[in-house]
């Protein structure tokens, strides 16, 4: 439905978007994820019509939307600051876009009531934006941008101003509304958890380029680069050099004096090619005794324990100085834990636990 074709955007010398091509499909909940300054907001502003691409074209439903001004696009945007009109009531804010079209009055009333109901704001219709809470303002902004039933809704860091608890509730509300209305949502965020929760597909961006576009689980399980592995969730990166063992199995020589590690990879690596092994902390087991039959096991001592309640993350220092994080569920009372700070422990993981990355 949306197609970026070799789009480049420059602001003077600065290249915000660098020759980027991307397809976004109908009724999708798509997330643009990246650190600040990666170009994700520029992408969104080009979709809304506030910026024009320097090169390349953007298609919406097969039509080039370059020459279409923002007020003529079937695209609405929910602003990061919400941009509610402070001089208008909640009702008038939601009706604002409808009144600009040729919709008859009674239909506008019906549509606004519908939107108020969808976002559970009926009680606040007569209030001004400064008389309601942050979470309610966020819902007004959503209702206002949905009122015109756009083909595409853009959400610019929509939950940035909310506290954590409210944000989590609102994320599910957003997904509900997206399913109910069947609108294509494109969300911009720097919060990887938020992107993973709400989106059906996520594009990880850096310096104006797409690094990986995939579903949240694939991004997490099979990142295509150290950048993505590091950006999405917590990860241990072990540098080394490969040696093929056949059957997609590779031996990785890493720190001198340590036995080589074993990992599988569908991507081929040549012998002695430098590589990075990325392993999620929860896939590393921690035990007081040396585990038997483990593909990989290393010994170290506990340096730090981050206690999260249900989970604990152990920072284990190996003799070479490398620190590896292991995460374990706290299935036993904390007083019965068999190891604590400075204790020698064994870390182990299977050959399939990690991902071998070239860069």
């Amino acid at each position, binding site marked *: 439905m949306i197609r970026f074709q070799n789009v480049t955007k420059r602001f003077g010398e600065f290249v915000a978007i660098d020759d980027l091509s991307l397809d976004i499909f109908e009724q999708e909940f798509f997330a643009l994820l990246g650190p600040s300054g990666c170009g994700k907001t520029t992408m969104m502003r080009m979709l809304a019509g506030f910026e024009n691409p320097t090169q390349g074209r953007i298609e919406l439903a097969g039509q080039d939307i370059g020459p279409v001004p923002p007020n003529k696009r079937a695209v609405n*945007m929910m602003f990061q600051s919400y941009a509610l009109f402070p001089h208008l009531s909640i009702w008038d804010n939601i009706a604002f876009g409808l009144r600009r079209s040729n919709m008859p009055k009674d239909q506008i009333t019906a549509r606004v009531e519908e939107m108020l109901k969808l976002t559970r704001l009926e009680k606040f219709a007569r209030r001004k934006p400064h008389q309601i809470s942050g979470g309610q303002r966020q819902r007004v902004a959503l209702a*206002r941008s949905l009122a015109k039933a756009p083909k595409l809704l853009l959400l610019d860091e929509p939950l940035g101003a909310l506290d954590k608890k409210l944000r989590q509730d609102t994320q599910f509300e957003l997904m509900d509304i997206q399913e109910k209305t069947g609108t294509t949502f494109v969300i911009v965020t720097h919060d990887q958890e938020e992107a993973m929760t709400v989106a059906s597909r996520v594009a990880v961006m850096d310096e104006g380029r797409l690094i990986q576009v995939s579903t949240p689980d694939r991004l997490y399980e099979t990142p295509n680069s150290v950048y993505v592995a590091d950006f999405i969730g917590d990860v241990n990166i072990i540098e080394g050099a490969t040696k093929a063992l056949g059957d997609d199995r590779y031996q990785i020589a890493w720190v001198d004096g340590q036995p080589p590690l074993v990992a599988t990879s569908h991507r081929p690596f040549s012998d002695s090619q430098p590589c990075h092994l990325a392993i999620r902390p929860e896939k590393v087991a921690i035990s007081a005794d040396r585990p038997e039959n483990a593909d990989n096991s290393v010994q170290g001592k506990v340096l730090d324990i981050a206690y999260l309640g249900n989970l604990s993350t152990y920072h284990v220092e190996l003799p070479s100085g490398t620190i590896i994080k292991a995460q374990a569920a706290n299935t036993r009372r904390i007083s019965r834990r068999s190891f604590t700070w400075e204790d020698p422990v064994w870390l182990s993981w299977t050959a399939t636990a990690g991902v071998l990355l070239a860069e």
Partner: protein
Amino acid sequence: MRRFFLIATPYAWLLALFLVPFLIVLKISLSDTALAIPPYVPKLDWAEGIGAFLSQLDFENFAFLTEDDLYWKAYLSSLQIAVVSTVFTLIIGYPIAYGMARAPDEWRPTLMMLVILPFWTSFLIRVYAWMGILSQEGFLNQFLLWIGVIDTPLTILNTNTAVYIGIVYTYLPFMILPIYAALDRMDGSLIEAAEDLGCSRLTAFWLVTIPLSRNGIVAGSFLVFIPALGEFVIPSLLGGSGTLMIGKILWEEFFSNRDWPVASAVAVILLLILVIPIVLFQRNQQKQAEAEQ
């Protein structure tokens, strides 16, 4: 106790510098004119008692103001000049303030400086400078003659036109600054939101920018209207004999006729007229402060 002093200080200030002088003027307005120093009777004499003093006061001077049509004509003409000047100041000031608020950040201090710069020289000198510009042989006429727009010099000085020019010029910064402050505070994404929801640039300006700068417009208009109504220097320097303004009448009553009681009555009425816009202005400021909480 500290709180009491904190609150009492501004009230004491107002009492000493506003209420007491006003009561003195009010008292003079109720007195009769006399050839004496000061030129009015009665004077408070404790030997005769307060009652005798009060019994000599009357509203004769106020009645006189209604008999001579010079006064109400002067009030009306002052109102008209003040209203028209305010409108012109708004028409000229709004685009300037808008341009300043939209200017790049690094330009703004300079633009702000340019608006405030005239205050660095005496107001009187600037009005005299306008006499040089507007007179028959002035710069404006010479320039218009030189480019050939006119054949004979225009008579601008000593007319109401000159008064309008003088007032608009003098009070323009008072209009620009509050409007600029209102526009500067405005979130730029509001305009984008309006466009996103289907507004053209012009309707977005009309439906969002203007209502959101309303407080600035109201504040600026009062800041121009209130002093312009009682303006004395500009009409007496730039205006002609036909320019009727209450500030000028007031001055003439005091210094030419030495009729302090009538002059005081004129001043009291002027103050009553001004109380209405001042109260409205205060309410606007208060509403704005509440909205910002």
